[in-house]
């Protein structure tokens, strides 16, 4: 039998270092990846990429996806899934467009998508818990078809365009920076970016610093534990899916402002983008793990990737392939990191 060698201080130090690196990668790995990508894109496209205009464009394009992904994240933390967010977005958007066309005042038009989103999310939550669906996948797969069908039904499946300035403010409003950079400056901050940041901060606070937030993580970690300590798991799940639906409603409002129209193809497959962003951002598909900053990074990374490939005139087909590969690599790196983390 081999003698157990005494651990030298060098070995201990290197072990410590691995642990430290693993912690750093755990928290900031994706941010490093984003930084790396930005540097590469800057080198490849020195004139275009690092311009205010291009970067704000990325933010404007991804704002609604970021909102969608945030809702998806909360659901995934509970070890659930919501396949219907794209359809909720579409139904909310069409409802907004119809109400707007009917001539309702702007504040009603702005509230409608949120209310529709909340109702849809609530339906999902009640279906999953009270109808005792075997998995959220099935309930939300059903409502993926259902909500989009309703959206097509009420709108006749045709686009409805032209909203008031107030309605469009969230999606395409600009905060000019003349006061900061001198008159004549054309730089601005998109209102949607500010909104997304506020939204993320609110959800971060909710998840990390309120009881509900801890319960949501507890449910994701072990629903039986949550039940055993007296948490009403069913009600919490209904709440979580309702929040997710409400966020999809906000996403619809942002998208309405950005495109100035409601169109039946809105949000098609965006549930998959949202899931991808959450997973790339380091959240566990099995629940209980993940951070809000990770989700934001996941969305931003996908936005950057699309932007960079567009700038370099790479075809959409290659973009699909690249995103697919990135999802697999991101999760594989995660698996590797966990193995290093648990090696004793």
């Amino acid at each position: 039998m081999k003698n157990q060698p005494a651990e030298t201080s060098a070995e201990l130090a290197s072990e410590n270092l691995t642990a430290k690196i693993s912690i750093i990668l755990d928290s900031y790995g994706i941010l490093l990846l984003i930084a790396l990508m930005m540097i590469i894109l800057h080198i490849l496209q020195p004139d275009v990429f690092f311009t205010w205009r291009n970067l704000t464009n990325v933010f404007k394009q991804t704002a609604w996806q970021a909102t969608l992904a945030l809702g998806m994240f909360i659901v995934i933390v509970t070890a659930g899934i919501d396949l219907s967010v794209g359809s909720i977005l579409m139904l909310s958007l069409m409802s907004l467009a119809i109400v707007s066309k009917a001539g309702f005042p702007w504040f009603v038009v702005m509230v409608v998508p949120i209310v529709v989103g909340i109702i849809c999310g609530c339906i999902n939550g009640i279906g999953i818990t009270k109808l005792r669906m075997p998995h959220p996948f099935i309930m939300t797969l059903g409502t993926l078809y259902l909500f989009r069908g309703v959206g097509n039904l009420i709108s006749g499946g045709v686009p409805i365009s032209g909203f008031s300035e107030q309605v469009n403010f969230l999606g395409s409003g600009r905060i000019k920076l003349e006061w900061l950079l001198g008159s004549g400056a054309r730089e601005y901050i998109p209102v949607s970016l500010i909104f997304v940041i506020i939204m993320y901060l609110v959800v971060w606070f909710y998840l990390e610093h309120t009881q509900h937030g801890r319960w949501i993580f507890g449910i994701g970690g072990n629903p039986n534990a949550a039940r055993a300590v007296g948490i009403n798991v069913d009600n919490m799940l209904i709440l979580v899916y309702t929040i997710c639906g409400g966020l999809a409603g906000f996403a619809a409002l942002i998208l309405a402002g950005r495109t100035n129209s409601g169109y039946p193809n809105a949000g098609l497959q965006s549930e998959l983008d949202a899931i991808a962003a959450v997973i790339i951002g380091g959240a566990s598909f099995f629940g209980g793990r993940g951070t809000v900053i990770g989700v934001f990074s996941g969305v931003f990374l996908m936005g950057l990737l699309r932007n960079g490939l567009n700038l370099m005139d790479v075809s959409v087909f290659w973009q699909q392939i690249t995103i697919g590969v990135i999802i697999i690599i991101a999760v594989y790196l995660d698996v590797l990191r966990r193995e290093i983390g648990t090696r004793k």
Partner: protein
Amino acid sequence: MTTPILQAKGICKYFGPITALEDVDLQVSAGEVLGVIGDNGAGKSTLMKAFSGLVPASKGEIWFQGKPVKFHSPRDARNLGIEMVYQDLALAGNLPIAQNIYLGRDPTKRFGFINRIDHKRCLEMSQEHLDTLKIHVKNAGQKVEDLSGGQRQAVAVARATAFDANLVIMDEPTAALAVKEVSKVLELIKRLKSLNVAVIIISHRMDDIFAVCDRVMALFHGKNFAEAYINETSHDELIGWVMGASQHRETV
């Protein structure tokens, strides 16, 4: 004799056509450790879940501190100071020790118009509580999934006792533990008893029953089978009760 802290009369539990419990009586007093034995499927865990509110009884009365009570969820039971340590421990591995101990009852402080969790106080309170129970962990911020089986068991016990429990129910607390860890859990049970807490413990290990219990009762096929004070019975007799065969005794 003092009035029992918990008294159950005629508890029945049906799962569809299956009768899990039929007309079961049980009582336990403050500072008393009651052992519940029985074969697999005898209804021990179901009976305990009726007391913890996780699986409410179909029929029967539960009296707590001399008053009739009804449990619809674990919250009702916990509000009365009835805590349960489940066989699968029911801990959330992704959360730190401290947050597991206070999950569902996190200490909060006002933050504007909302209650925010006081993470710092949660850590301090946990550490203090773990110290009183003489449970040693590196720190209360450690994730539960990084702990050993015995440490997890200790965390589950710590959670059960964090809020001045009157009655702690433990389902197979030593089943999954190494020998050294078993004695620690048994010590914990004795410490609870000395704090005048009533304890009900389910166990297959007769050694544990004899080490900590004052009284022992057996269930067989969902019914009361036998009961005795621990110093009036023997190892062999208890084994017989579990089999549902020899030396059937009337209740004490």
